[in-house]
């Protein structure tokens, strides 16, 4: 009993030492609230998962309904947002039973706005898919004017779901590596690319035929190139910004985080899929190309998660000590 108490005390003190070190740092201070490795370790990672699932799910719905007209894939996208993102948010919250309060301040808070976009998306997308998933009694189909209006509403709200997390991060003034106009386009592009990858994987898993496969591959290549360009601009922007942003860049490139950022997000999540996508365009089709494309999609999703994790973990508050004190 005494040993157990002692062990618990040591564990508690050791854990607090690590976490409170950041709170008492005079220099740039890492944000410890969002993402894996936060104040509550794994549980704080649920927020990262919520952002990730929201992005790829909304992206999958848009790609599935716009390019390949697959109800199955669109439904998976809807479920990823409606169930996956919602559950992840509830797991993250300190008081999940009060979740309804999150919708109360859309005038000033991007979190409120984002969750309202999510609900609107789920409502529009579910209504659009309803006739095709067993609710044939509804007075519209996908081809009717009302059905098209619902689709438009779902696509617009899905776009907002994909982009809002970028605005959430960009609104934090004291974290200079986040407080940049690059955040919304970066998150949006990653979400769309994640949607393409999810669509391809869902179609492969369900054995469905992918219409417009070449269009999909071209879109993926364009998205990967855009993402690469945005990441490069983001790095250059950090290098040319404040000392806190440069410290964020140092963490991204020369600490343990570099494995995630350079290894997973850039090399495995961008460069390898880009090479495989171009290879797929050059090579004749067939089983090998399909397997490579599926592999490329898995890497893209891993890269998407890694880049979000890296950005969250490299978020540093500017030092509280100022010149002249």
């Amino acid at each position, binding site marked *: 009993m005494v040993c157990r108490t002692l062990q618990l005390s040591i564990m508690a003190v050791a854990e607090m030492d690590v976490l409170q070190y950041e709170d008492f740092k005079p220099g740039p201070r890492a944000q410890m609230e969002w993402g894996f490795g936060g104040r509550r370790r794994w549980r704080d990672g649920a927020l990262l998962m919520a952002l990730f699932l929201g992005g790829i799910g909304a992206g999958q719905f848009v790609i599935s309904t716009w390019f390949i007209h697959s109800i199955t894939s669109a439904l998976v996208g809807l479920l990823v947002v409606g169930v996956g993102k919602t559950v992840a948010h509830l797991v993250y919250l*300190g008081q999940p039973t009060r979740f309804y309060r999150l919708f109360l301040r859309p005038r000033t*808070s991007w979190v409120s706005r984002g*969750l309202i976009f999510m609900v609107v998306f789920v409502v529009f997308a579910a209504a659009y898919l309803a006739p095709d998933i067993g609710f044939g009694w509804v007075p519209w189909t996908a081809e009717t004017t009302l059905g098209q209006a619902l689709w438009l509403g779902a696509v617009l709200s899905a776009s907002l779901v994909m982009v809002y997390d970028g605005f959430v991060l960009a609104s934090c*003034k004291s974290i200079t590596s986040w407080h940049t106009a690059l955040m919304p386009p970066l998150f949006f592009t990653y979400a769309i690319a994640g949607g393409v990858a999810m669509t391809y994987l869902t179609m492969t898993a369900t054995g469905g035929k992918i219409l417009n496969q070449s269009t999909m591959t071209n879109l993926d290549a364009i998205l990967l190139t855009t993402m690469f360009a945005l990441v490069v601009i983001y790095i250059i922007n950090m290098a040319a910004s404040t000392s806190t942003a440069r410290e964020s860049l140092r963490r991204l490139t020369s600490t343990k985080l570099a494995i995630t950022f350079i290894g997973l997000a850039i090399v495995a999540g961008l460069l390898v899929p880009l090479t495989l996508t171009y290879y797929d365009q050059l090579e004749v089709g067939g089983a090998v190309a399909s397997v490579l494309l599926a592999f490329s999609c898995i890497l893209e999703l891993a890269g998407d998660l890694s880049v979000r994790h890296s950005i969250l973990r490299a978020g540093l508050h500017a030092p509280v000590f100022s010149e002249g004190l």
Partner: protein
Amino acid sequence: MLALVRWGMVIDLKRCTACHSCSVACKAEHHTPPGVFWAKVVRMESGKYPTVTRQALPLLCMNCKEPECKDVCPTGATTKRPDGIVVVDSKKCVGCRYCAVACPYGARNFAGEWKDYFTGDSKPSSAFAEHSRKKWLEESDRGVVSKCNFCVERVDQGRKPACVNACPCEARTFGDLDDPESEVSQLIKKRRGMQLHPEYGTDASVYYLPAR
């Protein structure tokens, strides 16, 4: 309600000896659990041998005039009173911690569970720990964000915040920033008091008098 005051604090860095009395007084007043510091002291070394200086910076919620935390709060749990004190309603907070990320001063604290100081366990190990747990849960809650509120319950009774009362060096002065004749206003004027991170436009209600 129209308030005629804007409460603020002036901290004289020349007088602060980093004794942490403010942190202890705050903990005694609010029974904050381990890991939660509404008032803390950050220390920094600068320069090179033989001209090294060590400086202390007591930190607390700046109770800003334009609080970032209030704007980003999605629930409306964070509000600003007419007298300028920013308060968190723990019954409305959901623990999303957007405010803690947005605050440039690191003044917001999150406690997932109450923990005993000595065992690190969520079960109180003594009668005082039980009292402390009850007090904490009355004032705040588990799974929500909390922060310094200038000891609002004491201020409402016409008393000074606990940290101001406890500071043995009298480094802290509390008063009305809107009154040009008040001690805080006079100190800011005479000693060129400065706010932390004025570039964010938060207009903090805590001013620091330079150590040098």
